[in-house]
């Protein structure tokens, strides 16, 4: 016998069509401020800069168009070429070394280490510091007269030479050192999180198959961490491309302009050099570069995931 319901719950206050429509429109409504702001403050400003790059603007924006002139000047500018080469060196090394250190430390930390929390915090803390602080500290440590070189000299090894900071050919590598120091801990955290998310039965299965630990990590675990590599590379390239504070604080692009980076080039030409048109052109070139590298990568990664 079916149980008869004596107390039917209060019926839901019948909603008006207006409220139902709201439910459909609410998500769009919620997102719309961000959409508008993004369109204006990201894309609008990029278009504005694009327009500016075709003008002869110097001191402040002026809209007298000169065609591709600023781009021609840019490509003939030695400092710009140096800055772009530096970005490739800096970005490439920075990303590669951060990934390497990050992965290794994460794997090591994942071996049921005592005091893991403390070690993890030590690796992570540089991320909390501003580039001004990092730059100031490293500038001092890397200074041949004051820092590391001096320290080793005092220890008795007077032949020791570590003058990268003041060496035109090596200055860009000091940027790599400081940037890696600052960001590799974060990469470690990403990978550690990724490792924690992997089903341990995979490792057990591989061990039963007779695979050695390094081999398990190399051929089973790392491929599983592909999404983490993706996130890490995106975040690291974002840091590399935007590296501005660090260069300003550590080398100011020097000696000469040997450690200049595009962001610094753009900033100084736009604001202190009175070459706003040229600065805008360099900004657009930077964006084009970012797009050229990132879009194919994003596309292949995201598409691959959809198929999987």
């Amino acid at each position: 016998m079916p149980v008869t319901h004596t107390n039917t719950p209060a019926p839901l206050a019948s909603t008006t069509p207006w409220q139902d429509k709201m439910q459909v429109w609410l998500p769009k409504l919620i997102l719309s401020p961000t959409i508008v702001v993004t369109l204006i403050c990201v894309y609008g400003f990029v278009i504005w800069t694009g327009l500016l790059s075709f003008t002869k603007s110097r001191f402040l924006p002026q809209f007298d168009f000169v065609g591709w002139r600023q781009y021609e000047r840019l490509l003939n500018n030695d400092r710009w070429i140096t800055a772009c080469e530096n970005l490739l060196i800096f970005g490439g090394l920075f990303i590669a070394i951060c990934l390497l250190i990050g992965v290794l430390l994460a794997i090591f930390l994942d071996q049921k280490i005592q005091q893991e929390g403390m070690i993890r915090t030590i690796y992570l803390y540089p991320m909390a510091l501003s580039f001004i602080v990092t730059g100031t500290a490293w500038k001092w440590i890397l200074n041949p007269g004051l820092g590391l070189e001096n320290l080793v000299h005092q220890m008795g090894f007077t032949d020791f030479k570590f003058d990268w900071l003041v060496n035109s050919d090596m200055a860009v590598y000091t940027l790599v050192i400081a940037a890696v120091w600052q960001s590799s801990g974060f990469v470690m955290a990403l990978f550690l999180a990724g490792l924690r998310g992997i089903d341990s039965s995979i490792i057990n299965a591989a061990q039963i198959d007779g695979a050695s630990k390094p081999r398990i990590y190399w051929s089973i675990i790392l491929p599983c961490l592909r999404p983490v590599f993706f996130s890490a590379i995106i975040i690291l390239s974002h840091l590399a491309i935007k590296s501005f504070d660090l260069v300003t604080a550590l080398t100011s692009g020097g000696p000469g302009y040997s450690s200049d980076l595009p962001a610094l080039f753009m900033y100084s030409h736009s604001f202190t050099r009175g070459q706003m048109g040229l600065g805008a052109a360099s900004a657009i070139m930077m964006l084009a570069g970012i797009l050229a590298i990132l879009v194919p990568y994003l596309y292949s990664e995201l598409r691959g995931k959809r198929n999987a």
Partner: protein
Amino acid sequence: MKLKTLFLAMTFAAGSATAGEVEVLHWWTSGGEAKSVAVLKQMMEQQGHSWKDFAVAGGGGESAMTVLKTRVVSGNAPTAAQIKGHDIQEWAELDYLANLDTVAKKEGWEQSVPSVVTDIMKYDSHYVAVPVNVHRVNWLWANPAAFKKAGATIPTNLDEFFVAADKLKAAGIIPLAQGGQPWQEATLFEAVALEILGSADYRKAFVDHDMAVLKGKKMVEALTIFKKMKGYTDQAASGRDWNIATNMVITGQAGMQIMGDWAKGEFIAAGKKPGVDFVCVPAPGTQGQFTFNVDSFAMFKQKDKGAMAAQNDLAKTILTPEFQEVFNLNKGSIPVRTDMDLSKFDQCALDSMDTFKASATSGDLVPSFAHGMATTSAIQGAMYDVLTNYYNSDNISAQDTANLLADVVEDAM
């Protein structure tokens, strides 16, 4: 903030028509300079105005310029900003600067300030900025004790310079203290170029941008000597601030520094006496020549009456002999007024003032391109790039650099 300003303006408008707020953007944050600005602040406050300080240090005002540009674009320009040289013309051309002719007339600036300086302060023959001081850039600072120890004499020309430098080096003293920033390298080069080219050709090259001079033989010679000087600096110069370099001379770690007269403030602050603990002589071979660098405040157009009154008072105050004296004593420069009592100033400043007056008539008074006096920031920046790259890189010849210098100047014109 706007409301607050409005409120302030309203309250003051009732009582006194002259009280208002000045917001001053500057990059004078280091000791002597900051003290000097503090004096100005105090003097303004005595007149009933309020002072809002907007100090942004770093890179010879690079950050400050960025801030200024964004503030102007946002329609919220400060009352006054530390702008100098050619940039004053740029701002005035864009019609952002206020007309100070009334104050200038009332205060008689034309009579007390030499025309070399007032020309820079005027756009379209109207005053838009107020000069604060005159720096002489082509100074050589030396530590006599270090020279004595090395058995060297303080040089008066380039040949002597290298003789003395060799002796200092042999005595284990860094001959030339140098800071590794583009503007410091340009300052050094400027002093050399002034000697090699002479005042007339210096002007042709860096003010009129005569291509023949820019890539001429003399320029190549100047570049060669400039590079030769690098051999007498220490290796760790890169990124070093000028005052650290000065400090090397103070402590006797280094023998000499070629730097503008603001370096004097550092010696004084360290308790050193001019002529005894340190000497100031013109950069080698530039006796009688004067590379000037004039600091100034440009006044931005204001909507608010109180602010305008305060602005005029600020302009007036800056050029009062009292402020000129205090400020320049702190900063190491000489007053822009030529009618002042200089009894409190030291010998370096007196020398400077004499040369200033004399060179104004002889044609040896030239604007410093390293400090934005001679040309636009675009050309100045382009020249910085070429010079700093040449100075710090071993694989480019003096001749190529001279050609490149001409090319980039032409490109940036």
